[in-house]
């Protein structure tokens, strides 16, 4: 699709030839993830996570469809039906633990995928559309994960539904009617559970659709690479298959080992014990926390403790609760504007010394936010999350444009091939951060 030297599909098998002439699906696959897609030859392991995210979605779809065969979306029996899956259904425990931990691993690989994109400037022209669609996928994932967590109808399910729909109640005037409308009642109940189940089943297929658009948009300019220098000629690329299918196969093995370790040996480590208590509308758990992958955003939500008032009048313009909700949504929505906020023409963080420092600071910041989001809402966590949230917004909205205008990037290599060849000659000269540089490959293979 993208480069003139891409290999063309020539079916060897007469059956495939027959199919291809009538429906060029084999050709489409060949050009999308086969030998027909030329990919920069210098991708490092951080480029594995796109494929792994696709695998994670597949795991969720397969286990989810199986679980839906046994689950009952009724507030009276939902909790017991999950226990029925765990105790009586053949391999039911495996399906449920794989689905629950699979969700976490989906978020892990997507977060790594996002931060890869942030470091290597994958959001910059001409790949803005890839990035925008990625943010859409991320939003859909969050919605899907939230609704999935409600389904077991345990204490955290119930109170999570209550708290998250309560966010909408912060909107002035129409907020509370919106919450009641979302829940189909005045508190989470059977109506909410059923609609969440319906949407939880639907949204993953929407995600799959947007992923197709995401990959389509990617194939127009082709994949980015660790140098951020565009592909100049055939010598810069290798066919996706077998080069990157082999590398992704290895990455997949590592991913599955880690997932298996969690599923089989610590299946509840990432969950909250309270969700093994059936939903009880009369008693709130001591600490309501969402799943770990929402913690950074939960910390931002809780960091706003002060109303916006007109000084000396006491007139409240925006109450703290609404500020928190606005900030939480803004923290994700700002990613949509990132391609136009960061104006540096250099893509890769490898050649942006100042940007790189702040990127590491952002990683640290998000980890701190995550920790604070999982901690109880008391000091010092609230104060730490206030500082960390302030940095989060400042990083994207204030610091990035400033860096772009004052930074003096390092000289870029003339081409991908030049960078690859230079690396062999001057081992370790490039100052890539540990684990981030393209030189994580064993050099013996070169």
């Amino acid at each position, binding site marked *: 699709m993208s480069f003139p030297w891409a290999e063309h599909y020539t079916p060897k098998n007469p059956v495939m030839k027959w199919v291809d002439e009538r429906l060029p699906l084999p050709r489409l696959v060949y050009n999308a993830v086969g030998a027909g897609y030329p990919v920069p030859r210098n991708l490092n392991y951080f480029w594995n996570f796109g494929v792994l995210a696709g695998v994670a979605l597949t795991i969720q779809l397969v286990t989810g469809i199986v679980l839906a065969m*046994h689950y009952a979306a009724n507030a009276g029996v939902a909790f017991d039906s999950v226990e*029925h899956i765990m105790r009586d259904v053949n391999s039911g425990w495996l399906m449920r633990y794989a689905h629950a931990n699979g969700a976490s691993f989906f978020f892990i690989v997507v977060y790594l995928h996002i931060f890869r994109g942030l470091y290597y400037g994958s959001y910059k022209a001409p790949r803005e559309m890839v990035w925008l669609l990625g943010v859409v996928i991320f939003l859909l994932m969050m919605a899907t994960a939230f609704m999935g967590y409600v389904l077991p109808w345990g204490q955290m399910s119930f109170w999570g539904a209550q708290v998250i729909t309560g966010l909408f109640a912060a909107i002035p005037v129409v907020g509370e009617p919106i919450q009641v409308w979302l829940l189909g009642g005045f508190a989470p109940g059977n109506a909410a559970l059923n609609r969440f189940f319906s949407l939880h089943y639907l949204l993953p297929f929407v995600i799959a659709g947007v992923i197709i658009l995401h990959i389509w948009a990617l194939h127009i300019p082709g994949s980015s690479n660790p140098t951020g220098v565009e592909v100049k000629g055939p010598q810069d690329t290798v066919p996706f298959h077998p080069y990157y299918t082999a590398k992704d196969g290895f990455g997949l093995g590592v991913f599955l080992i880690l997932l298996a370790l969690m599923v089989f040996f610590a299946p509840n480590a990432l969950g909250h014990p309270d969700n093994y208590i059936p939903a009880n509308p009369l008693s709130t758990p001591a600490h309501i926390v969402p799943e770990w992958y929402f913690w950074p955003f939960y910390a931002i939500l809780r960091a706003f403790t002060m109303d916006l008032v007109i000084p000396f009048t006491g007139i409240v313009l925006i109450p703290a609760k609404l500020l928190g909700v606005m900030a939480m949504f803004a923290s994700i929505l700002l990613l949509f504007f990132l391609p136009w906020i960061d104006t540096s023409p250099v893509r890769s963080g490898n050649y942006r010394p100042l940007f790189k420092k702040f990127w590491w600071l952002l990683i640290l910041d998000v980890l701190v936010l995550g920790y604070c989001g999982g901690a109880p809402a008391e000091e010092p966590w609230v104060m730490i999350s206030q500082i960390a949230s302030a940095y989060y917004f400042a990083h994207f909205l204030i610091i990035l444009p400033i860096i772009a205008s004052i930074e003096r990037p390092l000289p870029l290599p003339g081409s991908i091939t030049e960078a690859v060849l230079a690396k062999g000659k001057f081992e370790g000269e490039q100052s890539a951060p540990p684990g981030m540089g393209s030189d994580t490959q064993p050099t013996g293979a070169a």
Partner: protein
Amino acid sequence: MATEVQGTEAVMDEGEGVRRRDFINIAAVSFAGVGGLAVLYPLVTQMSPSADVLAQATTEVDLSAIQPGQAIKTVFRSQPLFVRQLTEKEIAEADAVDASSLRDPQTLEERTIEGKKQWLVTMGVCTHLGCVPLGAGEGENKGEYGGYFCPCHGSHYDTAARIRKGPAPKNLVVPEYQFTSDTAILVG
């Protein structure tokens, strides 16, 4: 490990190296295939009856209230089960038939437990397409042969619940059961 592999490859001649490489690639793909097949196992078995369904797979039936000529309809594995106490006349009618002339040749002896010939225990599921035949309830149509009659497509069963007329290919199924006492059976 990788460096070792490459080290040995370097001293090999070109042809050896190529073959060895192919072997490793084929092995890797085969492993992936085996893994994929292994994953199918839980995905397929999860649809089989779960432990709680299997645990319900036996049914006890109390026979004490069933008079000769009467039948009851109960449930075994979520399907209707007919338990009938035959009268002397019905037994005689069943025995009078030459079993070898039947579509599904079986004698009444073969369909009952030895010494308990009057107790006819069958599934209430027509062997044609799975409807519930009539004849177990008081006053229901017992068909032309005085046993059971399936209204869906007109299968007639005789007093030993053997198919005599109509589309059904087999006699009503006799499930496995045993007498736990003179007046009780355990089906399944």
